[in-house]
C-alpha cells in the first residue's frame, strides 16, 4: 500500500473530505453504512470499528499538525486493533502498580511483539518494566 500523503487543511475530516480512503474492517466504504443497510443486516456492529490503516492516516494528520504524542498514541492504537477486548484489559491491569513482576511484563511485551506485531506497545511495556523496577512498584 503506497503511503498516502495527507494535507490536514485539505483532507480533514477524512469522513467528508477523503471518504474513499476509509473502509470498515469488513471492507465496506463509509457510504455503505446506511439505515437501510443496518436494517437489512448488511451492516453489523463489526463494521463500526476503526481499522489500523485509518488510525495510521489519522496519526499522520496529528503529526503533520505538530501533535507528535497524539500521533504516537494513534499508532499504538493501530497496533491494538488486533487485540481482543479481554486481552486489552488484561495488559492494562498488568500495568497497574504492583500488579505484575518484571518477568511477567517482559513476557507481555514479547507476546505483543510476536503475536500482534505491536512493537510500539511492546516498547511502552518494556519501558514500564524498567521504571517500575527502579521505583519499586513491581509485584513481589
Amino acid at each position, binding site marked *: 500500500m503506497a503511503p498516502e500523503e495527507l494535507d490536514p487543511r485539505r483532507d480533514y*475530516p477524512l469522513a467528508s473530505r477523503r471518504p474513499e480512503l476509509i473502509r470498515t474492517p469488513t471492507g465496506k466504504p*463509509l457510504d455503505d453504512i446506511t439505515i437501510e443497510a443496518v436494517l437489512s443486516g448488511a451492516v453489523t456492529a463489526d463494521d463500526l470499528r*476503526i481499522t489500523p490503516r*485509518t488510525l495510521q492516516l489519522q496519526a499522520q*494528520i496529528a503529526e503533520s499538525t505538530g501533535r507528535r*504524542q497524539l500521533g504516537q498514541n494513534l499508532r*499504538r492504537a493501530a497496533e*491494538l486493533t488486533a487485540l481482543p477486548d479481554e486481552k486489552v484489559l488484561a495488559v*492494562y491491569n498488568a500495568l497497574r502498580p504492583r500488579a505484575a513482576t518484571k518477568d511477567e511484563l517482559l513476557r507481555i511485551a514479547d507476546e505483543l511483539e510476536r503475536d500482534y506485531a505491536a512493537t510500539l506497545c511492546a516498547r511502552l511495556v518494556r519501558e514500564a518494566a524498567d521504571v517500575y523496577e527502579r521505583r519499586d512498584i513491581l509485584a513481589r
Partner: protein
Amino acid sequence: MTIQSAPGHQTPAARPRSRRTELLEQRPVNLDGFVEEWPEVGMVAMDSPYDPKGGIRLENGTVVEMDGKAREDFDFLDRFIADHAIDAAAAVRAMALSPTEIAHLLVDPKVSRQEVLSVSCGLTPARLLEVVRTMNVVEMMMALQKMRARRTPANQAHSTSARDNPVQVAADAAEAGLRGFRELETTLGVVRYAPLVAIALQVGAQSGRPGVLTQCALEEATELELGMRGITGYAETISVYGTEQVFCDGDDTPWSKAFLASAYASRGIKMRFTSGTGSEVQMGNAEGKSMLYLEIRCILVAKGAGVQGLQNGSISCIGVPGAVPAGIRAVLAENLIASTVDLECASGNDQSFSHSDMRRTARLMPQLLPGTDFICSGFSAVPNYDNMFAGSNLDPEDFDDWNVIQRDLQVDGALRHVPEAEILAARDRAARALQGVFAYLGLAPISDKEIEAVTYAHGSKELPPRDVLEDLKSAQSVMDRGITGLDIVKGLDASGFPDVAEALLGVLRQRVSGDLLHTSAILTPELTTLSAVNDANDYAGPGTGYRPSGARWEEMKRLRHVVSARNPEQEVDR
C-alpha cells in the same frame, strides 16, 4: 485559637456587636471555608518557596537533569514527562528564555499560537509554573483566549437522576442538547442501572439535537465496554495525579494510563484524562509542593501519553484551592497550561463551589470570558438533588442568568435561550423515542403517564417511580444479549423516529473514520467534525479570532423577556 464564629453559632460571651457585622455574618459567603497557607505541606496554590527551579540538561537528546533533579533521582512522573512530554529538540532554546519572556509570548496577540507551541513543547514543569507566576488573571485570560485549541467554544452538561430514572435522563439530555451543550455526561446511583441510563442519555441526546456526544462515568472495564458497544460516545473520567504516591493509591501509573488511552483510540473512541489542583494535598501527600506545580505534572503526563485532551480546573477538589489565597487564579492557570501545551481543555466549573452566588459567578468568569473548549465540564442540567456528581457550580436554575450574561458581554458561553414550547416538545419526543426503543428491545416498559410527567417535570421527585426490579432485569439483559448502538438505531427507526436513528448512526459512523480522535473534536448538529485541526484557534488580537456574530449573535440576543421596540406594550416573541 480563636473563638469559632460560624453563623448561627452563638459565642459564649455576650459582647455588644455591630449590627453590620451581624449582617455580614449572615452572608452566604461566610459559609464557605477559608484556610491559611502552609507551604511546607503543599497547602498553597501556586507561590511556594519549596517548588523547584526550572532547568534542564540534555545529553545525546536525553534529559539527564530536570528542574534541579538528576535523572537517577527521577520519580516515575519526572521520568515519563522527561521522556515523553518534553520535546528535547525544542527544550534548549525554550528553556533559555526567561519566565517573563515566555509570559510575554503568551499574552502578546502578535505572537501566534503556533509560535507559542514551538516554545511550550520544550518547557519543564517548574518553568511552566514560573511562567504563570508572572501573570495576573487578566493576562492569563488574554493568553487563554489565544491558546484555546478549538476556535469555537463549547459546553458540557451533567444529566443524572437521583433515582437513575432513564426517562428523566432522556428528557433532560434532549433539553440540554437543545440548549446548546455538545457533550453530556451521566453517572449512576445504582451501578447496575448503567446500561439503561446510558441508552437513555444517547437516545435523549440525539433527539434533542443531532451529534451531541455522550459518556457514562463508571469503573474502567464497564465504561470501556459501553463505549465499545456504541452505547456511549466518549470517555472522560480517566484520572491522573501529581505525585507518585497518590498515583499509585489510585492504582495506576503514567504507563497504564497511556496504554488505556491507546486502547480507547483503537476502538475509535474519543477520550480525555482528568486531573486537578488540590487532590494531592487533600490526601496528605503533596511532598511539600504547591498545588499548581503538581497539577502541571499531571498536564504533562497527559501530554506525554498522547491523549488529545484533559478535564482540569481542580474538579472534585475545588474546595481546597478555593480556600487558599490565589486559589482560583491557580485554577485558571491550570486551564491555561493545558491549552498552552496544545491539549483540549474541559475547564471544570463542574462541582459545588460556593454558597455565594457572587463568588460562583466570579469563579466562572476566567473560563467564560476567554472561552475554553468546554467552559463547564459539567453544567448541571438537573436539579442539585438529582446531580450524582455531588452538585455543580451551575444548576438548571442558572440557565437564564447564563444567557443574560452572554448577551450583556457579547461573550459566547455556547448556550442559548429556547422557548418553552420547543423544550416541552423535545422532552416529550425524547421520552417517546426511549419508550419506542425500550419496547423494541423488550426492556421494561415506559408508560404514557411517565412521559407526560417527565415532559413538565424539573426533577426526579416529580416523576412516578419506576419498577426497579424490572428495570434492573432489563439492564442485565442489555448486557447479556450484547445489545449495541446499532440495535438502538433499529429500535428508533422501528418506532417511528427515523431522524433520531439517522443522527445516532451518524455518531456511530464517526468511530470508523476516527476524525473525533483529534484534539478538541466535537460534532456539529449537521454531524460535521469540528476540531483543532479544521477549526484551529486563529486569535491574533482585536478584530481576529472567534467573536459571536451573525446568526449566532442574533440567537444570543433572545431571552425569556425582552420588551419589543416596535410595540413596547409587548414582549418580543420568545
